[in-house]
């Protein structure tokens, strides 16, 4: 069953096209995890995240000045190359400047007929953020009414919340299994899972994930897990890199398993659920997005991410953390010295890698191996 995640990840466009045919539903592409998927589900619109294809591309040059991150270039290239031609709309929940440029250039040159910019607040630590966001959600709902020709009520929103909460919960349960001494799922497989969720209807993803969870309880991987590694940082769905470092042990004296990550493709995206209780569903959704683990561009005045990162590292018993950053990713660059210091002060060695999604993963794997060797040397010492 676990293979299904990889198939969905690799065949994301085929899935979406056939989904539209099967269901007659609309599909909207979203650019950042600050889009409230619950509201899209309430309208029975399928939200799919737009990720890059990790190919060297040359179509974004006239649209994006060279100092913006390779991820946003890769995302824009997907639009300019017509890979998402089946979309009925595009939307962004305001996040970093880089990604919003991918969105706006797409809006200018490949607008599928509907687009919506959601000014998601950045001052998420302000008591004013939730009511502002509720106001913005009301505007989004008006726009979705235009797109779909239908109206929704609180029950629809509760349904949307339930759909998203259930997939979040099952992924967290699977992540719990990665705490094992020999995790039954590799980091690569986990990344396929979390990203597959971006591309599929959560209601179709859920039974597969439940089945995978059952299978994992008895699964034994015939491999030495090696060092337990945490990944922290910018957007990352570089499965090839993860595969390369997780297979180092087959070729080299030291190997590793990625046991936990803090990326917007993994835990930053799904860890927090909507706490509905008997409250107004729109407020509950807004609270979830305001209180979730923030992107560093929203993590101020207090740098709240640090404690969660450390807790993940401790709970999943990471031997070391690789701090990954997309080249030019300013929000992460402003945090990195402090993230590294916090982990190091608390006994977790770190290694820094500046990534470029469009550049081959090989050299990064070699550098990672060198880091693993230093972890091995430290272990030998004691």
């Amino acid at each position: 069953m676990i293979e299904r995640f990889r198939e969905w990840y690799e065949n994301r466009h085929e899935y979406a096209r056939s989904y539209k045919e099967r269901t007659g539903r609309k599909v909207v592409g979203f650019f950042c995890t600050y889009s409230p998927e619950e509201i899209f589900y309430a309208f029975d619109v399928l939200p799919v995240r737009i990720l890059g294809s990790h190919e060297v591309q040359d179509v974004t040059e006239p649209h994006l000045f060279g100092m913006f991150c390779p991820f946003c270039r890769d995302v824009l290239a997907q639009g300019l190359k017509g890979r998402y031609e089946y979309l009925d709309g595009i939307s962004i929940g305001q996040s970093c400047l880089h990604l919003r440029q991918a969105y706006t250039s797409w809006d200018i040159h490949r607008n599928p007929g509907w687009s919506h910019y959601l000014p998601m607040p950045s001052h998420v630590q302000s008591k004013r953020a939730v009511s502002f966001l509720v106001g913005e959600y009301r505007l989004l709902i008006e726009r979705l009414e235009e797109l779909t020709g239908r109206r929704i009520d609180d029950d629809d929103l509760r349904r949307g919340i339930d759909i998203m909460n259930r997939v979040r919960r099952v992924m967290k349960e699977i992540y719990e299994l990665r705490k094992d001494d020999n995790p039954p799922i590799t980091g690569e497989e986990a990344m396929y899972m979390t990203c597959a969720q971006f591309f599929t209807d959560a209601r179709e993803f859920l039974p597969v994930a439940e089945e995978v969870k059952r299978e994992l309880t008895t699964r034994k991987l015939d491999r030495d897990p090696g060092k337990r590694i945490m990944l922290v940082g910018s957007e990352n769905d570089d499965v090839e890199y993860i595969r390369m470092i997780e297979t180092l042990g087959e070729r080299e004296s030291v190997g590793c398993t990625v046991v936990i990550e803090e990326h917007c493709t993994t835990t930053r995206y799904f860890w927090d659920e909507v706490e509905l209780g008997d409250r107004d569903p729109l407020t509950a959704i807004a609270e979830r997005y305001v209180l979730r683990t923030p992107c560093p561009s929203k993590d101020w005045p207090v740098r709240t991410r640090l404690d969660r990162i450390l807790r993940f590292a401790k709970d999943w018993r990471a031997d070391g953390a690789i701090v990954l950053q997309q080249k030019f990713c300013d929000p992460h660059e402003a945090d990195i010295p402090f993230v590294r210091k916090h982990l190091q002060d608390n006994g977790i060695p770190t290694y820094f890698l500046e990534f470029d999604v469009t550049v081959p993963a090989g050299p990064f794997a070699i550098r990672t191996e060198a880091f693993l060797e230093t972890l091995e040397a430290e272990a030998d010492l004691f």
Partner: protein
Amino acid sequence: MAKYPTEPLKCWTKAKELRKNFYRNFDQAHEKGGIRWMGSAWALDAVTCGLGRDVYCITGEPYGASCAFNRPLSARFLTAAENYGFSRDLCSYMRNYWGSILTDEYAFGGKFPKADFAFTQHICCSHAKWYQNACELEGGVPLFAIDVGAGPYPPFAAEMYEHRVRYVAEQMLDAIDWMEEITGRKYDDELFLEGCWNDIRSTHTWAKICMLNRAVPAPLDEKSIYSLYVFGTLQKSNGEFADFYEELLEEVEDRVRRGIAAVANEQARVMTDTQPPWGFLGIYRHLETWGAVSIGSLYTFGLEGMWLYDEEEGEFLPRPMPGDKPKTREEACMMLADWHLSKPEYQHFYHPEYKTKMMDAIARHWRVDGIILHYNRGCEGLSTGIAENRLGLLERGHKVMTYEGNMGDEREFDEKAVTNRMDIFLESLGLKRPG
């Protein structure tokens, strides 16, 4: 080959004096029992006025530009920031600023004066992070930042939704409570109302001054504008600065009446975009040798000046001041929020098309022959969408050239290559190579 009479600005000495005092006041604030705060040039500085008349600030962007102007000093600051672990592609003002703290060196002499608190705003990804890190590097200074990323202003949004204005205004009210708590001072609403009005007065008057540059010959060139727009970036709510702008307005009106030019042989007019490479302002003199005057930019006009874009007319005009002064703290917060959310330089954070429209209006109404875009590696905020601006301006029939550089990191500017490029562009505008 002088075509027009020219003369220096009379208020130049006063401008220099005001700026010098500003930085000195910040340095010496503690000696007088006053308070020091740091924050962005876009901070809603009027909010701090209610703490008393002895409250002085430093704003990071003009400070960063002053560092960049002194290239050896800036090199030391940038290296210190990099050695600390900050990436070289981060905002170069910010790196100069952090470097200044790390080396404990004030660009105007002596040790870097530590702030008592930080008060800033956030729309570019780096704004709040800048002071979050500065506060940490200064050993734990309290920080309050106001998120102004609440969406575009009409006509770019269908209407100015009340919840957006309220979001910004309520953060200001929270900031006031916070300031009382951390300073132990009682907040004086009268002083706040005065600061609020000064802010509106200075940002409105600056726009009126820039309007006068529609005249041919242009009474001001952009290099001089840089020395004048700076007061808006230092402290918009400063009464002396608002008064100075009113004086300056009169002087520029007089220059227009008398046909006084900034550049005596004005033959062509260009406009620019984003901050210039501060260590290389000589490129503006180079333009003048060709008879080209840079009349300004959306950046110099609209970084602090307040304007409104008229979609139907394609016009760009100073935003009229509100009819009445605010009477209460709450009213002042709502008024300031609404006023600042219309800032032209905020709009492109939501879509490059909004900026292209305003630039197109400037190019047409200020009779611009060519547009020079600085692809500024030092500022991701103002470079956001700049490549689409280029495409949009070309589509609208403008002549556009671009060059790459960095406002605050001299290692990323190739002066020779840029002036060569400018020469080719100026020639294409029909100008004759200077003999």
